């Protein structure tokens, strides 16, 4: 078991803060000396992974990550820059062929700030209140001005959707999100059944630390590719940031129309798309309807396998959850799955419109999707390319994931069923594109030690 030093790891890498407000400051770094001063000025306020005492929770957090061009701008030594994994050096825009970022998802449709490729740094502020958010962001702007080290290109707001005056875990399509982030060794978290990997005797165990942090052994017993020197990479991780626009009107129309034709009704069809009812109940555990008591219990709400449902009659074989986290569905004791996990942090952005009220696709709303992993190529890119945009591993041929797949209007989603008229086989055809990519990039989230080295220009690659 690896002992990890939580004070050296940025908090964002280790846990979801569960704060309802956020702003991701997308920065351009200026002259390298000023930029380093800016990083130095940030060091004392960067939130680490240390546990907070109950009454000492901060009102806001600060975390910092860089694109490869950002690290170039900071003038890290050439040898270090070239030692980063290839996909991180290329950046997400150049990887479009692999990720199926084509058609409506291609960079020519991205927000200008991403299309132009000038984002060097991601400075994330998460806060408990809107006031705390503004206060912290103002402080960040002050540091930028004082050091002259960075310029704000855009602040991307994101935050929990409020329902009945309270922050919820809902996203814009109405699903409850935030379950099932992977457990890994060394993280100070109780291992929740369903989140780690399955052992041979059906228990859930934490994954190797090296799947999510650099400098530690991964599931294959190796150290994942990390930059040199060792201290630059250690305790750092990689983040995939994707701004996913949601076409809520199209989704609601489609679900309404198909729901009328489907024997189980609209809500059940919505559940079949994802593998959870919209309240979060896993459909494997409760195939006939949502069950609030399961959702409320962390020991149950992600504790299920697909072994008892090989035909997909409860959770369709091509459903979102079953594709991105196959659990035991591929056999081989998880050997094909355990190195393909990602840690998700994400928040919705844009105004929420309740069901039944008029809504337009063009309005700015969606989700800021962030995935953390030690190897972007082996983890995120693989899941995106092979399991979301393609279906061979789940024996669904070229069929894509119904909700987030890059659809051209001719694709289909098969809901497997039984002879029960409330759970019939049903084919959803002509899938429209519900989610569109509006930009993003690959980031490196350094440890505190690495940030100090970057700030003082003491990255020494041997």
């Amino acid at each position, binding site marked *: 078991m690896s002992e990890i030093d939580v004070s050296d790891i940025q908090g964002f890498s280790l846990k979801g803060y569960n704060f309802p407000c956020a702003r991701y400051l997308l920065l351009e770094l200026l002259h390298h000396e000023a930029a380093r001063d800016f990083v130095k000025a940030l060091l004392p306020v960067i939130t680490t992974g240390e546990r907070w005492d109950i009454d000492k929770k901060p009102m806001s957090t600060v975390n910092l990550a860089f694109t490869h061009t950002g690290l170039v701008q900071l003038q890290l030594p050439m040898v270090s820059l070239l030692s980063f994994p290839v996909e991180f050096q290329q950046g997400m825009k150049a990887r479009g062929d692999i990720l199926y970022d084509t058609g409506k998802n291609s960079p020519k449709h991205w927000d200008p700030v991403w299309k132009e490729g000038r984002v060097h740094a991601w400075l994330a502020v998460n806060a408990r209140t809107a006031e705390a958010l503004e206060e912290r962001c103002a402080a960040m702007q002050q540091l930028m001005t004082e050091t002259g080290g960075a310029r704000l290109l855009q602040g991307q707001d994101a935050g929990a959707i409020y329902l009945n005056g309270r922050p919820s875990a809902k996203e814009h399509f109405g699903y409850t999100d935030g379950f099932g982030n992977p457990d890994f060794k060394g993280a100070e978290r109780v291992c929740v059944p369903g989140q780690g990997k399955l052992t041979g005797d059906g228990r859930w165990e934490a994954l190797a630390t090296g799947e999510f942090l650099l400098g530690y052994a991964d599931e294959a017993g190796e150290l994942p590719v990390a930059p040199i020197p060792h201290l630059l990479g250690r305790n750092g991780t990689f983040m995939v940031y994707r701004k996913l626009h949601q076409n809520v009107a199209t989704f609601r129309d489609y679900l309404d129309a198909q729901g009328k*034709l489907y024997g189980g009704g609209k809500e059940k069809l919505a559940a079949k798309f994802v593998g959870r009812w919209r309240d979060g109940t896993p459909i494997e555990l409760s195939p006939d309807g949502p069950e609030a008591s399961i959702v409320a219990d962390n020991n149950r709400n992600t504790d299920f396998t697909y072994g008892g449902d090989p035909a997909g009659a409860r959770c369709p074989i091509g459903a979102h959850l079953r594709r991105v986290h196959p659990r035991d569905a591929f056999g081989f004791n998880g050997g094909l799955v355990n190195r393909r996990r990602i840690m998700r942090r994400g928040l919705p952005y844009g105004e929420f419109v309740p069901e039944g009220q008029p809504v337009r696709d063009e309005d700015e709303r969606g989700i800021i999707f962030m995935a953390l992993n030690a190897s972007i190529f082996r983890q995120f890119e693989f899941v995106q390319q092979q399991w979301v945009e393609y279906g061979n591993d789940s024996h669904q041929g070229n069929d894509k994931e119904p909700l987030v797949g890059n659809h*051209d*209007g*001719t694709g*289909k989603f098969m809901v497997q069923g039984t002879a029960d008229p409330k759970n019939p086989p*049903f*084919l959803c*055809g*002509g899938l429209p594109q519900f989610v569109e990519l509006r930009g993003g990039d690959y980031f490196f989230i350094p440890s505190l030690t690495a940030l100090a080295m970057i700030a003082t220009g003491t990255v020494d690659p041997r």
Partner: protein
Amino acid sequence: MSNQSGQVYGLTILSPIIEDDRLDICHSMELRWYLGHLPRDHKSPFAQISSTYLARLVVMDDVVYVGAPACEEHLKSHYLVFETNFDWDLETYLTRLARETPEFVDAVWKHCVGYPGVSDIAAFIAYMKKCQVETTFFFADVNNRTVQKSLEALRTQSALARFIAKHQGQSPAEVQREFGRLLHAIAHAPPPIPGGDESDRMPQENRPHE
């Protein structure tokens, strides 16, 4: 017999390539040039020898040096590797190659030592067998249906998916009638053409998006 798995035969042939120092362009290079321009889809000669599942031709220049302490050594000739997987038996396959795609066979094997041409089929078969190397272990995932049957099945599969999408929710009588029409169309469709983009779809389908 280790060359065979079910009804699939796995043929491996290593034909030494003629070495001639006097040539400006050696046989290996010419062969590579020819192979680089040979169609790989339904216009491939192997589409015509329609019992072929997957086939490859490789100019093997040399063995590999894996590094010290292994010894470095080299082949004195280049070899043309022909690896192919097809239905049923070797003699029929070789005969078909000679009879149905003689220009292709000539164009490739004229670069190889001892090639007798295709006009004498027996001599050609004897030559190929002399170049054949025994498969030590052969794995075939699907070994109990012919290429034709597999292609027809792929066609049925895509036609059925489209049918279900189109007729979902209609009355049983309508579905029954239309299904009868589909069965008729499938039964009367011309044999599928292997190797191309249309190999797995019904002939009358139009796909403007793809």
